[in-house]
């Protein structure tokens, strides 16, 4: 009580406690700053595909335009390709279509028609235009499970030796193509170039 005679200061805080407290405070602050900077990134919560840097799953799928023909994964080796999972029922695929069409003008893009009626899919391509070199048809969605596809659109970049190098979930925008896809593709081409150079020796 305030009227009692001998007020004395209580024990000072041990320096260790202060150091730990300061470290904790600034650690938390740093973490929060990191979190805030990341919070604007729409891809933040996308789980990385388990397939990245692993061989693409082997498959043998009928071609949409001619179901009597089958395409096997080995047949696509040799050069990088983009695998785009889509369906005529998927609204975001329609949104992505012009971006994909522009990209497909110069690059190899394989369509992967997922859980779709072939008739609807063909009609969709007729209406909007077909950007794909070839469209594979997976009506039941069995093979898509190997790829870990959970929603359309989803896009995989596979290099010439059949290794998955990049993946995107959701509709790609031009920005994603320019800032993520093209650099990833250039990296593959550079690696390929180095490997070729290694094989052939210095000219």
């Amino acid at each position, binding site marked *: *009580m305030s009227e009692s005679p001998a007020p004395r200061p209580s024990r000072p*805080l041990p320096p260790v406690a202060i150091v730990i407290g300061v470290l904790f405070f600034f650690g938390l*602050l740093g973490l929060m700053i990191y*979190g*805030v900077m990341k*919070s604007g990134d729409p891809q933040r919560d996308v789980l*990385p595909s388990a397939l990245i840097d692993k061989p693409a799953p082997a498959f043998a799928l009928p071609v949409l335009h001619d179901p009597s023909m089958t395409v096997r994964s080995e047949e696509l080796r040799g050069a990088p390709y983009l695998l785009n999972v889509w369906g005529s029922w998927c609204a975001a695929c329609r949104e992505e279509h012009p971006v994909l069409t522009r990209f497909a003008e110069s690059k190899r893009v394989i369509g992967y028609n997922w859980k779709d009626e072939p008739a609807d899919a063909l009609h969709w391509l007729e209406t909007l235009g077909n950007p794909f070199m070839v469209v594979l048809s997976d009506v039941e969605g069995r093979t898509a499970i190997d790829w870990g596809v959970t929603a359309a659109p989803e896009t995989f970049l596979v290099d010439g030796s059949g290794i998955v190098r990049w993946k995107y979930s959701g509709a790609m925008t031009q920005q994603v193509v320019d800032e993520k896809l093209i650099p990833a593709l250039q990296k593959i081409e550079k690696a390929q170039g180095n490997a070729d150079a290694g094989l052939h020796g210095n000219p």
Partner: protein
Amino acid sequence: MLPELGQILLLCALLASLLQAGLPLVGAQRGNATWMAVARPAAFAQLLLVAGAFAVLTAAFVQQDFSVRYVAENSNSLLPMIYRYSAVWGAHEGSLLMWALVLALWTGAVALFSRHLPAPVQARVLAVMGVVSVGFLAFLIFTSNPFLRLNPAPLEGRDLNPLLQDPGLIIHPPMLYLGYVGFAVPFAFAVAALLEGRVDARWLRWTRPWTNVAWGFLTLGIALGSWWAYYELGWGGWWFWDPVENASFMPWLVGAALIHSQAVTEKRGTFGSWTLLLAIAAFALSLLGTFLVRSGVLTSVHSFAADPSRGLFILVFLSLLVGGSLLLYVLRASGLSVDAGDPRRGFTATSRETLLLANNLLLATACAMVLLGTLYPLLADALSLGKISVGPPYFGSLFLLLMAPMVLLLPFGPLVKWQRDQPSRAFALLAPWLGLAVLLGALAWWQAPQNGWKAGLGVAAAAWVGLGTARFVWQRLRGNGRFTAEMLGMIVAHTGIAVFLAGALLVEALNVQREVALAPGQQVVVGRHEVRFEGVDHREGPNFTADRGHLRVFRNGRELALLHPEKRQYASGGQVMTEAGIDARLSGDVYVALGEPLGNNAWAVRVHIKPFVRWIWLGALLMALGGFITAADRRFRRP
């Protein structure tokens, strides 16, 4: 014109809060009475101005003024009247405005009831609250202005998030904020005490009711949120350890610790600097919670728009406020004058102080555990350890581990004497009741149809806390038979814990769930209940259409209830919401949710039997009530 008026009111409120924060603080430092006297009128003015701005925003919603962007984004012309009011705090800007309003209300209340305090204390407390107001009002005005106009004005608004169109969600945020923000009062007192350089028992007595009331509101808010998640999300769960829930749970845990440590400091003169630290921590965690929810740093089922600039603004403010007060604590806490000669200080290992210390340590550790689990995914991401999610297994098992000793020690607390006591005395008092609790637990174990040991432990724990509390009541009755409000509050709150324990552990043990496909006329047997599906019809709501299921629930052949779970499709965004059909009883709920249509009139139907689930919220209600009763103690109002 009205929205511009709202904006002007907000700007004036910012000026008033600057006045409230600045002059009295300097005045108290220099002993200038005139400057100190500015605090109270400035606080009242700030309250009036913020309330005015809030009223303007409400009017914009009621009149459907879609030229205001916030209104256009969060309501439309089909929105029922009651949700036009609650839509005011349905999204970021409005809920921040409510934050500011609640803070202004608490500040006004402090100004009103603090007249008998010494002028410098009064001035400092109001000034610290003013600093908080400045930060939030500036945040509101500069980054999250709710009065921004759209030009041209749209003819129709988007809609209030359908998840929020629910009676439970009308009062959940106000209650939660009353709790969160209420911790600003003990915080302001702690900072004022540090500035002053001493902790006075009189001030502490004066802060205690504020802490108790704030904690009571926070308890209500959390309980309402849990109740809402239970019937609205359609999973039948009542607590998900979701980041947003954790954000409100952390200040609750520290607040509970603070309530107890304040009592020790007030009555015994010990734990002084610890109480100050807890008071700072409780409010810091409230701010951290607001930050985590508002900034979009963590994602969860409650998603809010993410905008890094907003997040950075509030982060800078938060770190200055919390960092500043902690720095003050480090500089001043060791120099606080305490009475070394106070005969009430000092205690042995077997005393009530020791038990309350254990309570504080366990609650603080639980809070640290929740904080670690909540932030760990972010930490892992920052250190590129991969994407990790921390879920109920971590939180549930660790929380149980920490709360087990708490439950074991709780009944001893009120029965053990201050300073020193014979441990054998309390054991002798409680041994028969412990025996009875174990017996009841064994009975439950034997009787339970499943998870016998869980049910047994639940009953034993609940009975132990309940009977131990009853033993304290009995002891008082045999003594002088008088109960202070403080004691009554403690008894009610501890009974609430017993009721909560029974509910939470029994529903965990005895919950039965079936997911089946049912065609009209078919039925499913779940436990002792039969649920017959009678089909689905179509219903038109004010702003949605719904598939409404009809299910009859029978128990032992007798009809209990006709339930109507719904799947609602909202007109505006096409979002689908489930509304569970619940037959609620104290002995347990029958909970039915409608899944997907499967063709031929058959539907996927999920049926849960949830024994004693109501006790969870009843227990929380009792805890909150305990806080309010304690706050009403006349002793606290003595000058």
